[in-house]
């Protein structure tokens, strides 16, 4: 194990000498897809709970399909599937986009986490106490102001525990990225395994790195919960 660490620690953490690799790439994938999922899921969650069937049904279908199929297949769909279509290869901009493993991975990850996050947020919006909404209406707020000032802030807080779960699951899901030639931690571990045949230590080291990231994320979310959910804590006598 010491030999592997001495020889490959740089590749595991940030660069293999030519490109970024390992931890840096994994974190980049995680942050970009989570950010994309978060931004897109708020309007989608509002559409999901809307009374209009024309708004809620398409969002339901989107999240049903993306939550009902494995992320690996979604990645294959965007990476190998899309690029095999003549239609995509003939259009310059699409051709450029889908040729890059990075773009396909981010697209698949972003849509996948967006589907799960939409359901989490929609559930939290539905659980808003009716008194809060009625109070907002009584103050003469219009729908937009009501969402901006009352519903979204309280729903996002309530969604925090489930959302932290989703972020950690997303970290674990980023491991399929290597199948689209993205050099994340697992790709480095596979290279090390191929070079040394020391499977246990190669993958064990990767497992340790993932474990550390998971613990740090858990700690961060604990902190966030104690800050933003402070009003839900039982009062001290």
């Amino acid at each position, binding site marked *: 194990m010491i030999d592997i660490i001495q020889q490959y620690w740089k590749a595991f953490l940030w660069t293999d000498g030519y490109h970024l690799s390992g931890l840096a790439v994994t974190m980049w994938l995680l942050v970009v897809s989570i950010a994309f999922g978060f931004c897109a899921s708020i309007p989608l969650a509002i559409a999901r709970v809307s009374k209009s069937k024309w708004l809620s049904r398409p969002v339901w279908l989107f999240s049903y*399909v993306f939550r*009902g*199929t*494995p*992320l*690996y*297949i*979604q990645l*294959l*769909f965007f990476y*190998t*599937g*899309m690029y*095999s*279509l003549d239609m995509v290869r003939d259009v310059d901009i699409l051709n450029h986009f889908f040729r890059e493993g990075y773009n396909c991975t981010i697209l698949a990850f972003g849509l996948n986490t967006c589907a799960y996050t939409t359901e989490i947020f929609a559930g939290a919006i539905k659980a808003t106490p009716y008194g809060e909404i009625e109070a907002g209406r009584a103050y003469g707020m219009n729908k937009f102001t009501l969402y901006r000032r009352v519903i979204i802030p309280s729903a996002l807080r309530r969604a925090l525990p489930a959302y932290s779960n989703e972020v950690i699951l997303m*970290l*674990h*899901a*980023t*491991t*399929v990225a290597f*199948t689209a030639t993205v050099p994340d931690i*697992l790709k480095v*571990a*596979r290279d090390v*395994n191929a070079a040394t045949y020391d*499977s*246990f230590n190669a*993958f*064990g080291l*990767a*497992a340790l790195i*993932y*474990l550390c990231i*998971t*613990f740090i994320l858990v700690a961060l979310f604990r902190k966030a919960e104690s800050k933003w959910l402070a009003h839900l804590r039982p009062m001290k006598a």
Partner: protein
Amino acid sequence: MFLDGFGPIILDGAWVTLELAVMSLLVSFVIGLGGAGAKLSSNPLLKGIATLYTTLIRGVPDLVLMLLIFYSLQIGMNHLTEWQGMEQINLNPFVSGVFTLGFIYGAYFTETFRGAFLSVPKGQIEAGIAYGMSGWQTFSRIQFPQVMRFALPGISNNWQVMLKATALVSIIGLSDVVKASIDAGKSSYKVFFFTVVAGAIYLILTSVSSLVLMWLERRYSTGVREAEL
């Protein structure tokens, strides 16, 4: 022709996926019950081991664990057989896939069952003991039926996650539905179409299982009153 003649291969693959998922469910179910028992026991050693197991396994991505266990299992076996002077035993990829998945999801099931065991009111167990029931009788007559009810939402969730995780076994070389559709796509030059087919098969599997689980949940909550909202 049915799926350009690749129909039978893909159906075979789908069958392997389903078998793998069901077998790993059984393994993880047993590990989960045992793990929950260990976590709730008063023996500090058992408790410590079970806590270490669930924390480590749930903190590491399933694909990393799969590669780690899958490769190391064979190498470990080789060392063992070499040391014993026996011939090399090649592990069947299907069997090691089942044990790998079962071992990983056993950690999630442990947590599910632990929560469910804690939800059974203590007084009922004491009542069972007061009636002179043995430990096994209180478990099988009082605890287990209720644990199933409390655990079902968690079990459904774990099952759906595990079913989708089986897509990863093609990476460690099992010929499941994903592998079959990748191969079919490569040889027919219809990669897009066959990826959609694989996705559709998974969608059917998850939809059917969510119907079954809904039915089970209704069945196990017979006699439970719920307030109308």
